[in-house]
Each structure stands twice: as C-alpha cells, then as structure tokens.
C-alpha cells in the first residue's frame, strides 16, 4: 500500500515541532512493502500520524493519499472497508474490551487474516498461551500489549500501523514480537509503520523518520 503525505500538518501541533520534523509539512511517501520507523519523543505527533493514516482524524491541512486516492474523498464506507481489510492498527492505548478474555478480544475482529497463523501459534510465540482464557483486566500491561498485538496481526492488512508496540515489553519479548511482526508483514507483502520513543526493534527498516 502506497501512502503519500503532501505538506500534511495536523492542527494542534506547535510550530517548532513542525519545523524540525521529517514528516510534517513535507513531501513524503511510504512505499509499498516498506518497513518504516517513526521515532520521536512524547508529544511530537506519533499517534497523530498513525491516526491520520487510519482515518481516525481528519483535522489536518495538506494532502494525504492512500494508493493514489485523496483521503478527503474517501467515504465512510471506504474507511470501513479499509479498516476491515487493508490497514490494521495496534493502538497505543490498546483498546481491549475489559470484560472479555484475551482470546475473546483476539477473536473480536470482523474478518481474520488468512495468512496469519492460528491464534494459539502466535500466542505461543509471544508467551501468552497461559493467559488466553483469562480476563484482560487481570493481565499486566505488557501481557495486554501482546494480546492487542496478536489481535492487530490477526486482521488482514496491507499496511500495519504499530503505535509504540513494545513500550511495556522486555528485550526478550520485544525480540519475539519483532520476529512475529517481521514474518507476518513479509507473508502479507505489506508495509509497516512503527512508532517508537527511541528504542529500535529487531526489524530491518527501509526508512527511519524523526518527528
């Protein structure tokens, strides 16, 4: 999936942030099958960028196009379809349903990615098999982060957006998660945009941007 940003500036961002950014108010292209790292400190607009790309925010100037199509011309139905089949987002705040178990949360997606391994395999790889039938409110933030990651990977995608996916993971688990992500992005022939506070995961990135 090809994403192009043409002088995109989200409204609430301060001027000094925009001036020093590799992304805001510039011409930028996230190419198909590319892995992109967006690195910045807190408050520089990492989540804002991913939310713009996921159609959650429309309060920006400039142009954003997805596969050559101006995002401002996309209808509600287009966005529903994109979220259902083309773009998957791991939210920074995870957005899990607290009354459901880890497995129920993972399964609560409109359609499953046919290229993704079965849930048990991914859970095993991330070391959360033992918690699958546990309510997510009983899990630690790191465990929940891995549950949300499996859910994001279970959705079909051509673009995978991960918002600080390893913020609460230790190095071992970061490594396991990176391996799973790398494999699935490859199998899907998809692009990846991963935001981080600074640490660089074990994924070979084609481009690194500083916000």
């Amino acid at each position: 999936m090809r994403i192009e940003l043409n002088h995109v500036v989200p409204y609430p961002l301060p001027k000094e942030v925009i001036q020093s950014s590799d992304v805001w108010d510039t011409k930028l292209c996230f190419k198909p099958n590319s892995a992109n790292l967006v690195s910045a400190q807190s408050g520089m607009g990492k989540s804002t960028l991913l939310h713009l790309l996921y159609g959650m925010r429309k309060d920006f100037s400039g142009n954003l196009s997805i596969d050559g199509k101006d995002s401002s011309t996309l209808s509600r139905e287009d966005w529903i379809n994109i979220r259902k089949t083309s773009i998957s987002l791991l939210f920074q705040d995870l957005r899990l349903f607290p009354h459901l178990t880890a497995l129920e949360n993972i399964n609560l997606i409109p359609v499953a990615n046919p290229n993704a391994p079965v849930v048990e395999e991914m859970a095993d790889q991330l070391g959360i098999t033992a918690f699958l039938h546990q309510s997510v409110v009983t899990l630690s933030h790191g465990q929940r982060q891995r549950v949300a990651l499996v859910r994001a990977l279970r959705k079909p995608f051509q673009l995978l957006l991960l918002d600080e996916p390893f913020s609460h993971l230790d190095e071992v688990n970061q490594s396991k998660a990176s391996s799973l992500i790398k494999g699935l992005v490859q199998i899907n022939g998809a692009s990846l945009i991963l935001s981080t506070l600074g640490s660089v995961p074990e994924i070979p990135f084609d481009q690194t941007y500083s916000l």
Partner: protein
Amino acid sequence: MKDTFSNSKLGSCLVSRGPRRELFIASFGCFIGTTLLLLAIQIYQDATIYLENNEGPKNYFTINKKIEGGALLNLAKKEESFDKQELDTIRQLTGVKRIGGFVRNKFPITLYIWPSGKIGFGAAAKTDLFFESIPDEFLDFIPKEWEWEENASIVPIMVPKFYLDLWNFGLAPSRVEYPALSTDAAKGMPIEIFIGKNKETTLNGRFVAFSKRINSVLVPESFLNWANQKFAQPDSRDFYFLWKEGTIDGPPRSRSDLSKLQTLPDFKSWEISPLGNPASRSSISSLLQKQDSDNEPSRIILEIADTPSPALLEYIDRNEYELNREFPDQDLIKKALQGIFAGVIGIGILLSLLSIATFATSFKLVVSQSSEHVKNLLLLGFSPGQISQIFYKRFQKLFIYIISGSFVVCLLSKYFLGQTAIEFGINIESNLSEYTVVFTVLYSIVFLIVNKTNISNSVLKLDK
C-alpha cells in the same frame, strides 16, 4: 477471509445496564397505547358491523301531508291523501328511485293477542289497531307466509321490530300475565282480528315478521283490498250537503248516494258542499268526476338513491309535507360510537407516538452508554450496520414481547366482551378481524422502522 467473531461476543461488548426506568416507561406506554389502539379498532369494527346489520336502511323515507287541527276541526280538515299529479311530481324528483303508497283499513279493527299461545287461555292483550299495506317490493323481505287469498285461515301481519322491543322491555316487565317473547315465540301467538264497531267479523291472524324498515302495522295488499271492499264504512268526509236551487236539500248524503242521482233531470245544476264547510259549494258532477279519493294514499314510501336530494327536500318543505326517516336514532348511536372510538383511537395513537419517542430517547441512551465500545468496534473495522443490528435486535425482542402482550390482551378482552354481549343478545365474532391483524402488522412495521432508523443514526453519530 472468514468471520471470526460471534454475535454474542459482539453483543456482549454493547451490553449496558441501560436506562431501565426509561425503557420500562416506554415499554409500558407502548403496551397501553398499542392495546388501546387495537381494541378501539376492533370494537369499532364490531360495533359498525352490528349497527349495519341492525339499522334501518338509510335510503327509505316516508312522507305524509301535515296533520292539522284537532277533533273539532276534523270535519274541515284539508285533503290528506296524495293525488295522481302529486305522486307523478314526487316520482320525478332528483334522487327518487321509486315510490309506493300506503293503503289503510277503512273499518274498525280490534286485536286480541294471546301470549299464552292458545286462544282463550290466559290473558289476552287487547288493542284497537289499524292495518296498512304497501307494495311488496318495499318490504325488507317477503316472508313465506305473506301470501293471502280469500278464505285463507290466517291473516299474516308484519309489525316493526321495535314493537316487540316495546313489548319485551316495556309491557312485559310491568304485567305479570305478559311474558317476554323471543321473535319465534311472538310469531307463535294466535291473534284474533275483530272487524267492525261491534266486532261483527272475526279473523285469525299471526305475526309473521318484524320489519326494520316500515314503521307501521302491515298486512298483504291483497288482504287489505279485499277487506276494504268488504267492510269499508264511509266516513264523514264522504258525506255532503246537496244544494238544489240555493238551498240544502235533505240530510247529508254519501258519495255513492249522490252518484245514484245522476239519472235525474236537473242533476247537472245541483251543487254539493262538505259537511264541515257548507259555504264551500261546488258542482256535483265535478265531485263524481274526481278520481275516487279512496284509492289515493295518505302516506307514501320513497326509495331514494342516497340521502334526500335538495330538490326533494325543497319540494317537501314547500308543500309542508312531513318526512320521516325510519329509525333515525341508529344514526345518533353510530355517531356517538364514532366519537367515542375516535377519542380512544386518538388516545391510543398519542400514547403510541409518545412511546415511540420514549423508545427513541431510551435507545439513544443505550447506544451512548456503550459509546466507548461502539467506537472501538468501529475502529476494529466493524460496520455501523453490524453494530446497529445488535441494538436493534434487543429492541425488536422487547417490542415483540409488547406487541404479543397487546395482541393477547386484545384477544382476551374481545372474548370477554363477546361473552358479555351474548348476555345482551348481541352476537359478535370472538376472533380479531383481519383488518385488526393487518393493522397490527403495519403498525409493527412502522414502529420497527422508526426505531431502526433512530438506532442506526445514533450509531452513525459515533462513527466520526
């Protein structure tokens, strides 16, 4: 790609304890409103059918000339019958389909009615009465016993249905010797018909039918013609003073006596005057040339296309005739019922509209209480339609309980009303009519569509 979620899991994300009080009020209002509406519609239909089956036909009227004067003036009263010219004029008025004249008896009649079923057994109801006849085509129906021939053993009599009601609800309760009578029992009562001032002749009669159309005591035309011919007594109007050369000659003479004088010389120069007005003299030959007024009806029945036309009403008014529509009270009852049911239907509609509004507000609240989860599900790629469906099914379930409850209450009410009606001698269908069922379906469709739209809009508002 295959679906991975189960609807129950999706639904569980959208469960909220809900605004229970509002939902209860909406459900209760909807139940009461729907029940009232269905009952009103059903009972209105039953009442209309009952009244239509029991009301006098709308398009039959009788007219007569206004009766004037009292006992002392009767001798001078105006002509009460309609002559041929008048009948022709009425026949040609707009809206008049056909007319028929009432012929009445010209002899005294006294009836002895034996409610016991046997002459001479128990007490007889005795009454001086009159008979009238009209052409058979104006009867509501022609009973099979209506035929009458000379020497027939029974004279068939048809009286208005309300005579029987008067008997049952007026006379019978106040007189222990008179039992209340069903239609069949009334038809079985032997009746003695005494003819003449001194009851010179006795005939046997029987009630054979109870008319809802004609407000009179009817016998077959053939019988009345025969009886009038045989028993008619000239009345005071048939007697005249005979004037010869300016002075009254002898006692008053009947028309038939006068006609016997036609062969005498000077007959054409003689004059006559009515008994009540001796000064109003006219030629004797003009009296005899005039069509015999015995054959002219004093009351006529009209069948008209619908309600009386302005031309007919204007003619009646101009000639100061009296118009009687049979059983006009039925109209008042119907109008009163229409008013009551319009009121009940109005209240039902109002309650239903209020409940639709309360449901709409309640489900907006239900959706907004789950708004966080709705937004997350939308971000996961679920469509607003899928999510609305969850809320809508919950509403649908509630509504099915309500509409089923209303339907059952209507059925039960109808059953008990039917049972009560039977005690009053009214038979009504025990089931709900097809119109009520169709209305229920249409009403449900409207209710469901309105709330589905409302729920969809509430969910779409969260997808921004």
